[in-house]
């Protein structure tokens, strides 16, 4: 390596011959810049494949469940869902936390891994950020529409109203309003900034091939980007700052979502472990969803050279790490409930495991604690199909975790006279599954019309991008 030569003056090094730490190859088969551009742009420039149309129609159909469900809800009342006294938050808030959690992995990949200089993020970060934005859209449906009087949702924002009354800034729901709005806005902005150089490529390619309409459309959003290094210098700085700002944002957003529960006094909710527990859980579920989305994309579009086994390995390892943290959090909650000698807290945890919802608790434990442990084994990580199946289990398990937290604690809290079991209605169930349709519609549109990988960043991590490449014998 170059270091050995520069430090040749130290005689010890000539004796020891330090081992060369191999850098992971992030783009295999030594692909050129042109190849990368053609590969990614080819997806957009080509004809829409038949499978895309099939998936899109199915997705639209499923998304209609949500549209119909929400319309029925607003017209008739929250009573069409299964809510009751004492379980005043049921599936909708579970779904909200589920989708927001999924979104967090995208920001982690874009922002946190960027700050940590993990170059392997480049092939997945565009799709992951898109996943974040679409997940936030799906998530935001629920807190907006679950309120009893949706037409007064604007009461939540500090805008003038005829009562001249302000919002309650002590309430975690009010913090949620600011947090989720900020998260959605910053995610879109961050994603868009990353898209600008790629939109410029598409603008110019469409112009060259004569498609003036598409060239103008992409060009409008490309802002006239021309690849100038003076611009790149400011751009890179802005990107770094946005990554630096998005990192505490993602941590704070799910912390604030966890405060929805932690600030209340219900046993099982009122616990300080929630912020880190929720954030770890969010990253865990988000990586599960990233794997669920990226592995089929990789197979369909033959992106094995760009999303390599190293990438899949890294994603599996993060899933394993966060899944283990989540498992540890379960154990700690249980331990502290016992150690605190608080009878309500202790009862809550016995109730979770053996009460009316025992089945959801054990699904949660098996999906979240046991299934990620498979990722210790390299043979498992190399088997892409198996990894994909495990990622589905992770998604299911994380939904059940939110269900266990929210619904079992509400079902049985302080006074037994107020205990009551939640039964979701058909509207609940269809509205939730419809959001997968909404997500799929948006994601399918994304992969059809926008570059699914950041071409500029990908090129920047190839060995050919190194300005000092010719100097040493890499």
């Amino acid at each position, binding site marked *: 390596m170059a270091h050995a030569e520069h430090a040749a003056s130290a005689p010890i090094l000539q004796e020891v011959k330090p081992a060369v730490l191999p850098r992971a190859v992030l783009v295999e088969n030594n692909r050129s*810049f*042109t190849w990368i*551009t053609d590969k990614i742009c080819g997806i957009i420039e080509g004809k829409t494949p038949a499978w895309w149309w099939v998936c899109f129609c199915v997705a639209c159909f499923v998304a209609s469940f949500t549209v119909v469900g929400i319309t029925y809800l607003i017209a008739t009342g929250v009573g069409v869902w299964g809510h009751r006294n004492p379980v005043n938050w049921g599936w909708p808030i579970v779904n909200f936390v589920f989708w927001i959690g999924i979104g967090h992995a995208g920001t982690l990949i874009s922002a946190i891994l960027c700050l940590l200089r993990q170059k392997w993020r480049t092939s997945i970060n565009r799709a992951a950020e898109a996943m974040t934005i679409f997940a936030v859209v799906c998530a935001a449906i629920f807190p907006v529409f679950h309120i009893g009087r949706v037409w007064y949702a604007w009461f939540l924002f*500090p805008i003038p109203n005829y009562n*001249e*009354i*302000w919002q*309650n*800034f*002590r309430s*975690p729901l009010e*913090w949620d309003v*600011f*947090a989720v*709005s900020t998260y959605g*806005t*910053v995610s879109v*902005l961050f994603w868009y*900034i990353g898209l600008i*150089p790629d939109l410029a490529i598409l603008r*110019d*390619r469409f*112009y060259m091939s004569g498609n003036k309409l598409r060239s103008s459309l992409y*060009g*409008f959003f490309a*802002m*006239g980007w*021309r*690849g*100038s*290094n*003076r*611009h*790149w*210098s*400011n*751009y*890179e*700085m*802005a990107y770094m*700052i*946005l990554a630096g*700002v*998005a990192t*505490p*944002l993602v941590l*704070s957003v799910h912390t*604030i979502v966890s*405060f929805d529960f932690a600030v209340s006094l219900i046993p099982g909710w009122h616990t300080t472990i929630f912020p880190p527990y929720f954030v770890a859980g969010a990253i865990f579920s988000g990586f599960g969803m990233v794997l669920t989305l990226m592995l089929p994309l990789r197979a369909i579009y033959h992106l094995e050279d760009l999303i390599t086994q190293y990438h899949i390995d890294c994603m599996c390892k993060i899933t394993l790490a966060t899944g283990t943290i989540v498992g540890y959090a379960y154990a700690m909650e249980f331990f502290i409930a016992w150690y605190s000698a608080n009878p309500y807290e202790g009862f809550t945890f016995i109730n979770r495991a053996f009460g009316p919802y025992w089945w959801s608790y054990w699904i949660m434990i098996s999906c979240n604690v046991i299934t990620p442990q498979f990722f210790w084994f390299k043979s498992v990580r190399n088997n892409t199909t198996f990894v994909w199946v495990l990622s589905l289990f992770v998604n299911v398990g994380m939904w059940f975790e939110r269900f266990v937290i929210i619904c079992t604690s509400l079902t049985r809290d302080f006074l037994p006279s107020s205990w009551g079991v939640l039964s979701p209605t058909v509207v609940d169930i269809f509205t939730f599954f419809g959001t997968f349709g909404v997500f799929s519609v948006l994601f399918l549109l994304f992969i059809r019309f926008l570059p699914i990988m950041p071409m*500029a960043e990908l*090129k*920047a991590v190839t060995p*050919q*991008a*190194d*300005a*000092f*490449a*010719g*100097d040493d014998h890499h």
Partner: protein
Amino acid sequence: MAAQSYGLIAHFTTASALYKAAKKVRDAGYRNWDCITPFPVHGLDGAMGLRRSIVPRISLAGGLTGFTTGMSLIYFADKFAYPLVVGGKPFFSPMFAFPVSYELTILFTAFATIIGMFIVNGLPMHYHPVLKYDHVVRGMSDTFFIVIEARDPRFNLANTRALLEQAGGTEIKELEA
């Protein structure tokens, strides 16, 4: 060309070639010039003699504005405009005002960063002589250019062209304005 040209453009095929050429152009004393790259090349800022970007200062201003906006809004609302006893909590505490202020800090930082970056870069600028160049699509994709503007005081058609050839540039052309 009869009309005043915008400047000269040269192709480079590798990042390291561009890097070395940029140093030459910088050392020759040119000011109004630029490198066109498909991705940010590390070290090129120094090779071009660029100063550090001022975007961070704009971001900082945005962040501070966001934080003070949050805290002042909540202080004004809860202490002056409409004080309410809510859950026995004090009218104002930096504790409960913090989450909202924190989010506003981040939001305003993001806005300031992006708007600042666009303004400093002079974007959007949909019409530019470089964008009219036939092969600009390759500059976005896989080739590196150096563009030296004619308005630079040291610009001389023959000498600048010779400098670029010496630095390793190929397909040196004049850009129409």
